[in-house]
Every structure is written in structure tokens, then in C-alpha cells.
């Protein structure tokens, strides 16, 4: 057992901390600060801030230098994830690009794609959207019906995507589309890069139950994309999509732990202020959440160990996703339960505004759906890890 990071990784932590200390304004620490801004304005500020960070060299931490990364270790990436949350740095505006697309491009992209995609993505010159879900294809992703028909050197795309993160701010979308008519469900798919700034692409925001619009829908009407803008071979889209989703499910545990643990402490402080911190039922409930949060932290150490040993997380990513998403949701349920009738009030006392916490609590209803619902993850765990029959 050795839970330490290398001296090099700790030096990196120091450098990053120093930079963050000088570049994260105090007001950003305030819970609910970002929710208090106009959504487009918040997006613009974060996009610029993140670009500056990238230009300073704090982006693409564990990616090769030749593609614009920092060339660091997986341990440095874990340090980065932790420090960003600790410093109250804003969440990335390019999450699907950074977390899912980039590692997939690194794994299966052509040399030209690596050079063209990674650098601009890190510098926020291109905001990426993911076009997977459709009205008729949610958990059953292989049912996508958006079609791409070849016309000379281009594909012509028609169809609709939904639950698209950053749809209205997106520059490009990587979309799972049907390119091989007549091929069986999983075989006829391709992953296509489509420019969103063209007449054939229309994006609309979706208003969610929280009131916010992180997601949107994207309509393709004779949209065009060069045939070379395919990730992996045409027809291999399903395998590429599955690889990509494994990155989504195995998202950084240490960042999540740090963020959720902060929420836990916020919940505790609210209960104290409302005089509920001594309630034995609430204490049991919160301690149950704490147990799962700590387990998430240990699990992130396990995952980092596996990565550093050169092993692939594989289907265990589904286990990670179940742990973090179910725990996050349960934490906010515990909050509501402890508040009782006050749970639904924006401000149970005049000096206690709960709206930003309530927004986080609402968001937690989505995390057990996107990226493969908990029910889909349980199927994966049961069939792929436990070997139960299909």
C-alpha cells in the first residue's frame, strides 16, 4: 500500500494551487454564484477562464504534448481533478469533449484527427456536443434512426438528437448515425463529426425539471459532413460509442468525492442552523451517505492504481458509475428527508437560501439516467462482471 503521489506530482499540485489561488475570484466560492448568473453569460465567462487556464498549460494533463496536452501522469490528472474542485474552479464548459471524445480520439482516431481535435478542444475554440440519444433511442441506443447518406465526398444527415449537453453553445457534434442501410442494428452505425454552424443544423434548449437548460435537442435537415470526418471506420460506430461510454462511466472519482463531500458538509451546516443536527434518524441517514462517499474515495484510489498498473477499467466503469450516481442522489434525498416540510421552501428562514442546493438536488435525478441509466449499468455489472446469463 502506498497512497502517496510522486514528488513530481506533488510539485505539480503546488504549481496548480498557486495558479488557481490567483485566478479564481473569491465570489466564485459562494454556493449558488453560477446559478445566479444568466446562463449564456455564465457560459461565456467559464469558456474564457478555461481557455486561459489551458494556455497556461493546465489542461490535457495526462495527454501527450504533441497533441497539446501537458504530458503528465495519471496521478497528476487525479491531483488536478482534486485541486480544481478544492479551489472552487468552475466546471468545464467542454465536458463531453474533454471526458469522452478526447480519450476516444486518442484511442482510435487518425493522426490527423488527433492533431485537429485535441488542441482546439483544450483551448475551447471548439465546444463539442454528443449526439447519441434520440426520441426513439434512449437506453436502447442501437435503435438510433438518424440517417447519413453518402453523396460524393460528403454524408447528408437527416434526423434528430436529444438530451444533448451544451446544444445551443456547441460548435461541433459527434453523432451516432446510421450509414449502412440494411445492416443489422449494431452494425450499420458510424460516429460522425458534424459542424453545427450550417443551415441544416438547428439546436434548441430543453428546459429541465430544475428550470435550467444544460441539455438541448438538435435537428438535422440535409446537414453535411465530409466522409473523412468519421471516428473509426464507417460501420464501426457501435464499438467506438461503447468505448466512449466507458470513459463516461468511469469519470473521475476523486473529483466527485471532493465535490460531494463539500455538499455533505453544506448539508450538515444547514441542519445545524435549523436545529436538526441532533436528530438520531437524520444522523443515521447522513452517516449512511458518508459511508458511501468514503467508499467512493477508496474506489477512486483503486481505479487510479489500476490505470497506473496499465490495466483497463473495462466493465468495472459501470460499477463506478452506480456508486457515484446512486450515492449523489441518495445524499440529496437524505437532505430532503432531514428537512421534512421545509425541504420544498426556497428559504426556510429569511437568512437561509436553499435554492442552489435544491438545484443540485434536482440535478441528481438526472445522473442515474444519462450515460446509461442505473438499470442499464446493473445489467452490465450482472452480465459482464458476474457472468449471469443474458
Amino acid at each position, binding site marked *: *500500500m*502506498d*497512497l*502517496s*503521489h510522486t514528488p513530481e506530482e506533488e510539485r505539480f499540485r503546488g504549481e496548480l494551487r498557486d495558479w488557481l489561488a490567483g485566478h479564481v475570484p473569491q465570489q466564485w466560492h459562494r454556493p449558488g454564484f453560477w446559478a445566479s448568473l444568466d446562463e449564456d453569460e455564465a457560459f461565456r465567462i467559464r469558456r474564457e477562464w478555461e481557455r486561459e487556464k489551458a494556455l497556461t498549460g493546465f489542461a490535457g494533463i495526462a495527454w501527450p504534448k504533441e497533441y497539446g496536452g501537458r504530458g503528465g501522469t495519471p*496521478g497528476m490528472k*487525479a491531483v488536478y481533478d482534486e485541486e480544481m474542485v478544492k479551489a472552487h474552479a468552475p466546471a468545464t464548459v467542454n465536458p463531453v469533449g474533454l471526458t469522452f471524445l478526447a480519450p476516444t480520439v486518442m484511442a482510435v482516431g487518425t493522426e490527423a484527427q488527433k492533431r485537429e481535435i485535441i488542441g482546439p478542444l483544450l483551448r475551447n475554440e471548439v465546444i463539442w456536443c454528443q449526439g447519441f440519444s434520440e426520441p426513439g433511442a434512449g437506453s436502447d441506443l442501437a435503435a438510433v434512426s438518424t440517417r447519413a447518406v453518402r453523396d460524393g465526398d460528403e454524408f447528408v444527415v437527416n434526423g434528430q438528437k436529444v438530451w444533448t449537453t451544451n446544444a445551443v453553445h456547441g460548435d461541433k457534434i459527434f453523432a451516432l448515425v446510421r450509414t449502412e442501410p440494411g445492416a443489422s442494428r449494431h452494425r450499420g452505425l458510424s460516429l460522425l463529426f458534424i459542424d453545427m454552424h450550417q443551415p441544416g443544423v438547428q439546436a434548441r434548449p430543453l428546459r429541465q425539471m430544475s428550470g435550467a437548460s444544460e441539455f438541448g435537442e438538435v435537428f438535422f435537415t440535409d446537414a453535411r459532413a465530409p466522409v473523412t470526418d468519421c471516428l473509426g471506420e464507417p460501420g464501426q460506430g457501435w464499438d467506438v460509442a461503447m468505448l466512449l461510454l466507458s470513459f463516461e462511466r468511469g469519470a473521475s472519482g476523486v473529483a466527485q468525492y471532493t465535490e460531494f463531500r463539500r455538499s*455533505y*458538509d453544506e448539508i*450538515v451546516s444547514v*441542519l*445545524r442552523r435549523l436545529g436538526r*443536527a441532533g436528530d*438520531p434518524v437524520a*444522523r*443515521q441517514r*447522513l*452517516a*449512511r451517505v*458518508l*459511508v*458511501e462517499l*468514503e*467508499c*467512493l474515495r*477508496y*474506489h477512486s*484510489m*483503486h481505479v*487510479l*492504481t489500476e490505470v*497506473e498498473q496499465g490495466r483497463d477499467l473495462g466493465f468495472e466503469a459501470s*460499477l463506478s458509475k*452506480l*456508486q457515484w450516481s446512486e450515492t449523489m442522489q441518495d445524499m440529496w434525498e437524505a437532505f430532503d428527508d432531514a428537512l421534512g416540510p421545509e425541504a420544498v421552501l426556497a428559504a426556510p428562514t429569511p437568512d437561509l437560501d436553499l435554492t442552489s442546493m435544491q438545484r443540485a438536488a434536482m440535478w441528481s435525478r438526472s445522473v442515474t439516467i444519462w450515460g446509461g441509466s442505473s*438499470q442499464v*449499468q*446493473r*445489467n452490465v*455489472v*450482472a*452480465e459482464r*462482471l*458476474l*457472468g*449471469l*446469463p*443474458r
Partner: protein
Amino acid sequence: MFFALDDEQRAFGAAVRGYLAERFDLAAVRAVVEHPGGDGHPATLWKAMAEQGWLAVRVPEQHDGLGQGMVTAQVVARELGAGVVPGPWAATVLAGEAVLLAGSSQQQAELLPQLAAGELVATVALRGPCARYSLGGVAVRVGSHGRLTGVAAPVEYPSVAARVVVAARSADGGEYGLYLVDPAAPGVWVRELACYDGTTRLGELTLSDVAAVRLETSGSPAVAALLDRAAVLTAADLVGVAREALTRTVDYDRTRMQFGVPVGSFQALKHALADLHVGVRMAEHAVLYAAHALDAGLADAPLAVSVAKAKASDVALQVTGAMIQYLGGIGYSWEHEAHFFYKRAKREAGLYGSGDEHRERLAALTIDS
């Protein structure tokens, strides 16, 4: 970052598992379970434990031990849990922990080599009947001339132990300590307690003005530290129970046919088993981390111990209950071994602090401070 067992620790676990599979399988466990009047202490098994170093894990090399940390000790405990193995291994190892924590160098030199070699069977008595596992739950008092009076229960294997480490409170109640007692000494009365978990033997220890030797440097911190180590080793045993129960259940449901298909193909079972797998995995992490936290003296060790015991207790109860349910009728039968796992989980879930007790400690650590 290396959050995993090293090759040596893995090999140690494999050796324990290998021995049990060959020489002390569930048929051997059954013989102990079905003979509740016996001492529950198979001699050949004890001899093997001694020869193979399972009892010497924590004893420093200078005292003829292997000088390993709690991480290696939890490897052994896990395998013993997986095999639902009877015998005073945990009791003897915990007595050794007490000597390590608070014995003088002379006491260590006298006792540790005997414990490591299996020549001395020992146990610990840290709590009064129906009390909490905390300093406040100690129901033995130190009287004049350091003699002990009071009750402790349940104590593991009091009838085969030649030495008992007893936690006791000073006459003014302010200080706690650990004392060595010979159960054959005048004033000691051992009453066997019938217990539905046949993979151990329990008793109640009543002391009436009994001569005792104080572990020289013991005080309240040593008693608290011993309770934490006991909680971690018990959590490790529970994790072993849980993992094995889950594996056996999955194996059964993969092949058991109903409605013309394996029952394991039904999502009602798949989803429940998947959640249990996630739970066991987390409990495995938690026990590993807690053991390391104690070895390394990490600041969050008390929190880690309670996380591990709370998680392991819960998940072992869930899995062993599910084992009975997802085996169907056969799981409820005496002839099937499911009840060995279920009953051992029941006993250990409460031992050295139930999930609820450890959660209350976590609440105190994170809400009150």
C-alpha cells in the same frame, strides 16, 4: 498510488484459501456446527494455523512472528470469513494486539512468541453484557491490589483460552486498562452461552475479586485502539463471508433452471445481485483502507474504521439474506450451507459495534465537530 495488496499479501491469502479448500471445507465446518457441545476448536486446524503462520502475522519478527501489518491480518481474516471457519484465531490475534499495544517489553517477550506459535490460546473480554462496544460499555472494575470484579460477554472461546485480556475500569471510573487473567484462577466463572452461529463458541466471564496482571502501559487509548482493531478484523471476516456468499449465489443462479431458463437471467435477480456486487466491492475497499489507515497512523483512521465496520456489517447481512432468498427453498434448509454464512454474518454484524453504532460515531465525527 498503490491501493491494493502486494504480491506477497496476495500469495498469503491464496495459501490460506488453498489450505481451507483442501483440508477444512464446508463439510468440516458442518461437523463443528452440528456438535454444539464440542469445544469448536479442531486441533488439526489450529496446528495448521500455527505452522502456516496465520497466528504469527502481527507478531514482530523479534518475537518469532512475521511482522506484518493489519493489511496482511485482514487478508487472513477475510479468508477465514469466506470459509466460515471456526476456531479462536481472531480471539488469539486480538489478545496479541492488546499485548502489542500495551504490554511491557517483558510481557511482549513472554507472550508474543507463544501466541505466534499457537502454544497459547487466548481471547479478549472488552464489554459487559448488552452494553456498547466503547469505554462506557466495560463492566469490570479494578478493586484493591489490582484485582478484578465484574462481567464480560459475549467472549469468544473462553473455555479453550488459557489467557484472557480483560478491559477494566479503575475504581474511580476515570481510567481504563487491559488486564491479563487466567480463566482457571480462583474467582473466575465461565458460563457457556448457546449461540445459533455454530462456527464459534461464546461464553460469559464473571470475575469476583480475581488476581490479574495489568498490561503495563495500557490506558483508555489502548482499550479504544484495541476496539478499533477488533472492528477492522471483524469487518474483514464479514467481507469474506459476503464475497463468498455472493459468489455461491451467483453460481447457483447461473445454472438453476425455472420457466425453462436459468433464474439468473431474470432482471429481478440480476439487478439485486449487481447492487450487492457493488456493495461488496466497496466493503472490500473500505476494509483495506481502514487496515492501512491503522498501519500508517492516518489522521482519518477512526473514521475509516467505522466506515469499514458499518459497510461490512450491512453488506454481509444483505448478501447472506439474499443468498437464502435467491437459492429458494434449498436456501432455507439445514442441509444447505447458506445458514452458516447468514448466522455468522448476524453474529459479526453486531460484534465490536453494529452498523448503527458505527454510523453514530461517524455522525459524531462529521456533524458534531
